[in-house]
């Protein structure tokens, strides 16, 4: 008897939980078009993911939740900064929430792990940040698009900037993961001087670069090139200033100094950051109507400058909305959807650009500088076009 009683107690707890899991799933609206968006919403890296989510919500607000006449909504998934969790979040969005199209993805390794799930399900995948080389080249796919850039392009622009500045010897530091390797490959491709040293550091564990900086100092280069996205960038910049390199050897960065880190640099009085140069496909003061609406809207809504991650996410939603509109909300017309995406007919915050044959943008890359705006807030400002209408080098390897 007692065992039976215990059993019923347990079943009271367990069964509803299991039942709920199945039922909770079926309560979903089917009339709206659904966009799945995977990004990092927990762990300290969520500082990037939150910025992207803010931009997505702003884009939805600016569109009034409608692509043409078709209502749409965005469902978010959290990758917990981990490829396996990212893949699970992707599976949940596709198989349970039944989204019609997938977007998001900050990290190259999360995207690589998740892309098979999306493409096997016959859905279209639009990366809002990560652009690893395999997906641009030999493993390109007709249903994969990228709305940001291929990893190599921005550092290639930086290589050109270095040549122009007369840098003859360069020391490189980057994290040892897919994007880090691509960044290094990019700068090595265009930089004409000598590379006197290179360190690939453990990602994301390593946050103290004392040994590497000592090596860089001993190598005595004309410049140091780094790629440290997110919170790592801030830690690196501070240590650089204190290592005896700051003020002596100029630091050239990609994807490291942005509106996510700048408020922190400013509050820590790191004046050395002012005037530092980077390359990027976009800047908050890039002059076009769409960008003005985006930046003003973002500042009004969230009280801060948008990061480039935010700009890409805002573009991603507008981009997808343009395709939804083109097919009149019938997301089963994959071929028409793809054609609309290839046409890329929407008002991008970066101004005019084309979608290349490997589904990566052909666009301008600019040099940017850290400046104080009219209110004394640190931000980045556009300088010159470094690479005009640039196509990534892997496009030639792509055979769709």
């Amino acid at each position, binding site marked *: 008897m007692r065992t039976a009683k215990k059993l019923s107690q347990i079943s009271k707890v367990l069964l509803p939980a299991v039942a709920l899991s199945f039922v909770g799933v079926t309560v979903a609206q089917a009339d709206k078009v659904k966009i799945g968006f995977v990004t990092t919403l927990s762990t300290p890296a969520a500082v990037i993911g939150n910025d992207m989510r803010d931009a997505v919500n702003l884009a939805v607000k600016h569109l009034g939740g409608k692509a043409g006449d078709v209502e749409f909504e965005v469902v978010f998934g959290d990758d917990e900064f981990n490829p396996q969790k990212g893949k699970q979040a992707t599976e949940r969005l596709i198989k349970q929430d039944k989204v019609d199209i997938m977007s998001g993805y900050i990290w190259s390794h999360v995207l690589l792990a998740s892309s098979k799930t999306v493409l096997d399900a016959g859905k279209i995948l639009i990366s809002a940040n990560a652009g690893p080389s395999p997906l641009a080249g030999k493993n390109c796919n007709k249903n994969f698009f990228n709305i940001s850039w291929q990893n190599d392009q921005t550092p290639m622009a930086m290589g050109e900037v270095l040549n122009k500045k007369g840098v003859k010897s360069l020391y490189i530091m980057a994290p*040892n993961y897919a994007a880090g390797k691509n960044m290094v490959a990019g700068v090595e491709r265009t930089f004409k001087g000598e590379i006197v040293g290179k360190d690939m550091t453990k990602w994301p564990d390593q946050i103290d670069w004392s040994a590497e900086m*000592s090596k860089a100092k001993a190598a005595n280069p004309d410049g140091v090139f780094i790629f440290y996205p997110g919170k790592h960038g801030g830690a690196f910049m501070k240590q650089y200033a204190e290592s005896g390199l700051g003020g002596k050897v100029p630091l050239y960065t990609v994807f490291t100094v942005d509106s996510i880190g700048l408020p922190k640099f400013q509050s820590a009085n790191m004046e050395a950051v002012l005037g530092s140069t980077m390359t990027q496909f976009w800047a908050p003061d890039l002059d076009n109507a769409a960008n003005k609406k985006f930046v003003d809207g973002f500042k009004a809504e969230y009280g801060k400058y948008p990061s480039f991650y935010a700009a890409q996410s805002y573009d991603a939603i507008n981009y997808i909305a343009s395709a939804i509109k083109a097919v009149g909300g019938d997301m089963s017309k994959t071929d028409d959807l793809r054609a609309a995406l290839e046409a890329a007919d929407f008002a991008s915050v970066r101004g005019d650009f084309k979608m290349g044959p490997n589904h990566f943008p052909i666009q301008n890359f600019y040099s940017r500088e850290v400046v104080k705006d009219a209110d004394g807030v640190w931000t980045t400002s556009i300088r010159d076009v470094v690479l005009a209408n640039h196509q990534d080098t892997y496009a030639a390897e792509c055979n769709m």
Partner: protein
Amino acid sequence: MDWVLIAEQTLNGVQLGILLFLLAAGLTLTFGIMDFVNLAHGTMYMMGAFFGATVMLATKSYLLGIAAGVAGSMLLGCLVERVALRSLYERNHLDQVLATFGLILFFNELAQVIWPTDGLTVPFPTWLGGTVMLPLGIEYSKFRLAIIGAGLLVALGLWLLVTKTRLGMLIRAGASNRQMAGALGVNIPLLFTIVFGVGAGLAGLAGMLITPILGATAGMGEVIIIQTFVVIVIGGIGSVRGAFIAAIITGLIIGLGRSFLDVLLLTFLSPNAAESAGPALSSMLIYIFMAVVLFFKPQGLFPPKSG
């Protein structure tokens, strides 16, 4: 070989070693005296960094920040010991590992809720900014040098505490034979709380010492706590002297390995393969070192009972 570079890398290694020692000292005492495995020791390091950074940002004073970091983590350590961990002393190591693992998850998340997701950044104190010229043309960060100095002072103070005071005598008695010490009338529960609090305070000190360099971020404790465990196992569980020597050796292995291993690897690997293998293999070196030490001295370098 570039002797200036080697000297500089040695300093980097020593600085890391000092940090590891501050963490290892508390861990080896709680482990040695209470036979308690505390994975959440790294959490005290993190919370010390956050408490300190908060106060420093409010008051603009680094020294007040350090005081807040030490006091805050010490209080938190005593609180956690009284509320949660006390009931686990009689349990086996497995239970202790799991329970304190739960604490790590909780505090990491709590830090992200209370403070900004990506943590706090504090400026370098102006009086410790920039570099200093040492003899032989070595230019080194003033701040890192200060960490080494502060750590050595604490080590000296700890040595005096353990060898010259009554509390130190009790600690040594507890480390070598807990039952006997208890039977001789030592107030064991109070001793435990004190030792735990001191250990947490030292971890908090380490956290706030390094915060101007690394910033305070959730999860900063996990990376360093495993290295700290390696240190105390190498040093001999319960031995502060062993922890000091093992910490410096470990710091040097990591620091020098990271700087020179890829040069060595270049002799038989391609540059790209060597670049990515170097840092990973230097992380492996400390585990190899630990396995070798345990093979020859299963109780670590300085088992407390022998001195």
